[in-house]
């Protein structure tokens, strides 16, 4: 195992822990994107450039975009719900 591979494994371990330990969902999404980049580095260091290429887009845009959109929708529904009950 080369030094680069050990560094990549350590970065992924730290990144995964950081995602789990972030409590605010919006910040967690940001940390998740950075964690995705460490995974890209891991795949590249372990000679899997094909997987690394897909992970760049899936990890940094694909998944965070969906999570952020969902968070916005939830926040908006929680904003409008009390006013609905007031109207009734």
């Amino acid at each position, binding site marked *: *195992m080369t030094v680069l591979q050990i560094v990549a494994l350590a970065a992924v371990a730290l990144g995964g822990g950081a995602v789990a330990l972030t409590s605010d969902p919006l910040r967690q999404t940001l940390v998740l994107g950075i964690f995705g980049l460490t995974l890209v580095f891991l795949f590249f260091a372990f000679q*899997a*450039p*094909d997987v690394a*290429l*897909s992970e760049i*887009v*899936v990890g940094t*845009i*694909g998944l965070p*975009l*969906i999570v*952020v*959109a*969902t968070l*916005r*929708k939830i926040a*908006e*529904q929680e904003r*409008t719900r009390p006013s*609905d009950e007031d*109207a*009734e």
Partner: protein
Amino acid sequence: MSRRARLTLFAIAGPGLAAVLIIGFRGLPAFGDYHDVYGLVVNGVELSMRHATDYVTALNFDVRAFDTLGEEYILFASVLGVTLLLRVMRGEDEEYRAAEHGMSGSSDAVRLAALLLIPSLIALGVYLVIHGALTPGGGFQGGIVLAAAPAAILIAGRYLELKVLCPTRAIEAAEGIGALGYCLLGLGGLIFASVYFKNFLPAGNPGQLLSAGFMPLNSIAVGLEVMGAFLIVWTAFLDQALLVRRRTGEAT
């Protein structure tokens, strides 16, 4: 279950799991030590018989093209499920003014960066799809890079222009044509080589753009499907987040 009972359960199960894992890991071959026959045979065959220089693509789009068909339709079915769940429901409206209003925070620098990103992402995506059999990349990788290009418009804060550039019908058509095209390429194998998904095109010279038999065509079909699938899912989620509003004055 109380906190104490859970901790007791973990005190038994945790070390047990650790012990089983350690025993299992000790039985693994050494790091970087590969002895399986299948991988060695495939590696020996890809270049000589299939004239492909990227073995991962050759495995996905030729040797195990049928597996890729299954994966294609897993993606297809999940996209179908997402669009079904996130459709505009009764008592909801799409509000087109709210979208631009809610996202006008991006600066000129970010807009310029998005403008530069779009053409370079399209170029990279097309390159990855077409050169799948030659260099790392292929239909899936190229497809998501192509899908990321319109998503850059979103960074510029212009979601409605994204919907103008990628109308729902067009991205749905891209996904459908990609999925159908991949099936038909398999059927071509059945007709011209009497086995489903057997290569039926000349292999060409290794390293040239038009080589590796029907792999570039498979790659294009998968690229179209993946690009369409990601754009459909993203726009479905973003529609819900930015456009769809519960109709006011209607009790729900």
